[in-house]
């Protein structure tokens, strides 16, 4: 809870500062646009959080987004039906997660290595099947694209809330309930802290780890569908590049520890929002966009440092409060000292 407070105030601070500088930042259009991008990145960040909670990492998120982004229009062009194409890309994502999980648990390979190879393989595969040609929906699927591009009318909110934002919130609620209110969520948190103790407590740690990688890959796949529908013009060699970095950064900003065992879904979503707001602020305020990565890097570093400092300060205050308590006991001490000195003589 405290962790969310920290990052939320950072988000509010950036929003306030930017809007003071340029009021257009708070225009309905801009808010809607930022919310839309937040929801797309939020989806893949939630997936990343699950893997990070187990103490692992998934570097293939961006490539899965790229692969799904290429496959979906490509399959539709091959006259697959919409449900079949969507089902196929989700199934492929799940299969990718399953193979990551199997390699990591059964073959005992390192998550970094497995998913790094995955990153290269899926990118290459996406470029090969599309022959590196830009993919798109060519205006044939307007209804489907509304999923990502459309808005849901909300009374009192002008042009409404972006549809993907509503969907992302739904996914976040499900993920949050899964993590905090189910046996499996508790198992994930436990094995992230101490896998051996979790196994000795009767938790099927392999199966839970595999599950985390499947969740991550499927969330990347779902995110990939929305990115594709929204962008419409997909370059196989570049679509989704670096997205895993955004996802991991949002998860870490949102309170996930890379050591595992810690994390909150709400924090991760706010982390994703912070990244998008920053990106947007850079544009609105007129900072050269070349500095984008540098600024995001500095802010993440600053956030993590201040988080650590606040935690230390809180710990110190706790210590001081408790030390003042035993002062009463001090009066009794000289006597005890005298008796112990007797022993020493």
């Amino acid at each position, binding site marked *: 809870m405290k962790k969310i407070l920290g990052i939320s105030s950072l988000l509010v601070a950036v929003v306030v500062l930017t809007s003071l500088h340029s009021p257009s930042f708070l225009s309905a259009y801009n808010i809607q646009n930022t919310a839309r991008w937040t929801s797309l990145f939020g989806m893949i960040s939630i997936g990343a959080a699950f893997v990070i909670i187990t103490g692992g990492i998934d570097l293939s998120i961006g490539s899965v987004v790229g692969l799904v982004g290429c496959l979906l229009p490509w399959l539709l062009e091959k006259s697959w039906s919409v449900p079949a194409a969507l089902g196929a890309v989700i199934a492929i994502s799940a299969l990718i997660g399953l193979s990551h999980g199997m390699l990591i648990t059964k073959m005992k390979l390192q998550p970094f290595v497995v998913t790094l190879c995955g990153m290269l393989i899926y990118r290459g595969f996406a470029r090969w099947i599309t022959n590196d040609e830009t993919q798109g929906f060519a205006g044939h699927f307007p209804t489907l694209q509304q999923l990502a591009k459309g808005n849901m009318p909300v009374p009192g909110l002008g042009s409404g809330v972006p549809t993907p934002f509503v969907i992302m919130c739904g996914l976040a609620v499900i993920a949050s309930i899964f993590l905090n*209110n*189910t*046996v*499996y*969520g*508790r*198992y994930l*948190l*436990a094995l992230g*802290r*101490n896998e*051996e*103790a*979790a*196994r*000795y*407590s*009767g*938790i*099927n740690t392999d199966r839970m780890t595999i599950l985390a990688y499947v969740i991550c890959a499927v969330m990347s796949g779902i995110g990939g569908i929305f990115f594709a529908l929204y962008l419409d013009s997909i370059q196989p060699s570049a679509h989704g590049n670096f997205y895993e970095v955004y996802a991991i950064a949002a998860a870490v900003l949102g309170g996930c520890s890379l050591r595992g*065992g810690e994390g909150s879904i709400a924090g991760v979503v706010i982390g994703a929002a912070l990244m998008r707001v920053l990106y947007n602020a850079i544009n609105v305020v007129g900072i050269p966009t070349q500095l984008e990565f540098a600024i995001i890097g500095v802010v993440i570093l600053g956030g993590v440092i201040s988080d650590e400092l606040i935690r230390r300060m809180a*710990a110190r205050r*706790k*210590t001081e409060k*408790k*030390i003042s*308590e*035993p002062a009463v*006991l001090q009066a009794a*001490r000289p006597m*005890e*000292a005298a*008796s*112990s*000195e007797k*022993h*020493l003589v």
Partner: protein
Amino acid sequence: MASKPVLLEVRNVSKRFPGVKALSRVSLSLYPGEVLAVMGENGAGKSTLMKILAGVQQPDEGEILLDGKPVELASCRAATELGVVLIHQELNLADNLDVGANIFLGREPRTFGFIDKAKIRAESSELLKRVELDVPPQTIVNTLAIGHQQMVEIAKALSVNARVLIMDEPTSSLSAHETEALFRVVKDLRAKGVSIVYISHRLGEVKELADRVVVLRDGQNAGELQREQIDHDTMVRMMVGRDLSQLVTRSSHPLGDVVLEARKLVTPTWPQYALNFSLRAGEIVGMAGLVGAGRTELLRVLFGVERPRSGGIFIGGKSCEMSNPLDAIHAGIALVPEDRKQQGLILEMAVRENLGLASLWKNRIASMFLNKAVEKKDALNAIDKLRVKTPTAEQAVQFLSGGNQQKVVLGKWLALNPKVLLLDEPTRGVDVGAKQEIYQLMEQLAADGMAILFVSSDMEEVLRMSDRALVMHEGFISGELKRNELNEEAVMKLATGAA
């Protein structure tokens, strides 16, 4: 003794930690060439005092004098330079490097900036001879047995001309043979004028080694004993602060049917032996043997952590295939593992979460949701019943003392009401008071019909708690002793393979 000048003196040292006063005006003096045993229950302040002497921590009040002059031990390095060296309970060796490199780590002799390996080799060989360790200095540390690694630590301390050697429970993971070797080295060092502060829970060792005993209790001096005054009961009384007259007595109760049976069970560690034994309801069976006799490995197989090479495990007459701990738990087996912190607990998680970890699935709602109300209620019940000392159920387990942590591990399994309870060194690193409570609990569980198999390297524990003892020696069960045949000599004979 008092005529000799004091080498090291601690005067009225106090140290506070968040919420605890770890040391309160503790004093002690150490003379040249003596072995001073510092005893006390867990949490009595022994470790804190030793850390202060070694410069790891600084006292809030009081002073430390070396050769009568006040010294400031601001860091480990400062203490080392003054000749005060601490050998940690968990050894601090870079086990990927060789013995010589470890002895001279951070102080490598150099010629033209390059490490002078010849010199390291020559000097290490000398030092290794002094600690009776017959290995070449080029041996990689992780290929050595724990006892030998400890000797490397001692050699390292000697290499800086340590005058005061502080040993924190040095025998806790040594076999009987290694312990003997350690004692010889300690006695030899004493004869050469090195002073040794020796921390141990094991009363027998203290009796054999110590010239003097200082007892701490609740962070204060509780008393001191000279060589001729050292005896078992006095030490226990000083440590606990009361007589242990209400020791747990084993009452005999009728035994039930055979609950667990191992038939021709072959473990992966000792594939040449097949093990046969059985366990009846209401029975407490002790498993004695030297460290490395294969007892822990056997428990791991029974609990499904490792698969047996062949043979069968029968629960209530039915053959059970255990391919992971979950299968064992379903069959009604629970294991309190040897390494509490690594295998028994999730240290950063709350007491409540640890207590519930094994039984969560049993109380789940709609096949997957946590029943948080039941979890909380069960946790509070367990804390109350097992008398776990914790401020709240939400306290992270890592802040509990060893005894209370062990109670949490036990509580985790009792929530499932298992038929067979396997305990691996149930009272290691547990203080005297909590030990009694654990014994009491074992007695009560057995009386209620649970079958208990416990592995212990503590002879007293085996003699006191077992209805029957199995003794293992180098991978096979070398003998079985009924309660009326149980005595120290009989167990040792079987454990060492002399029978």
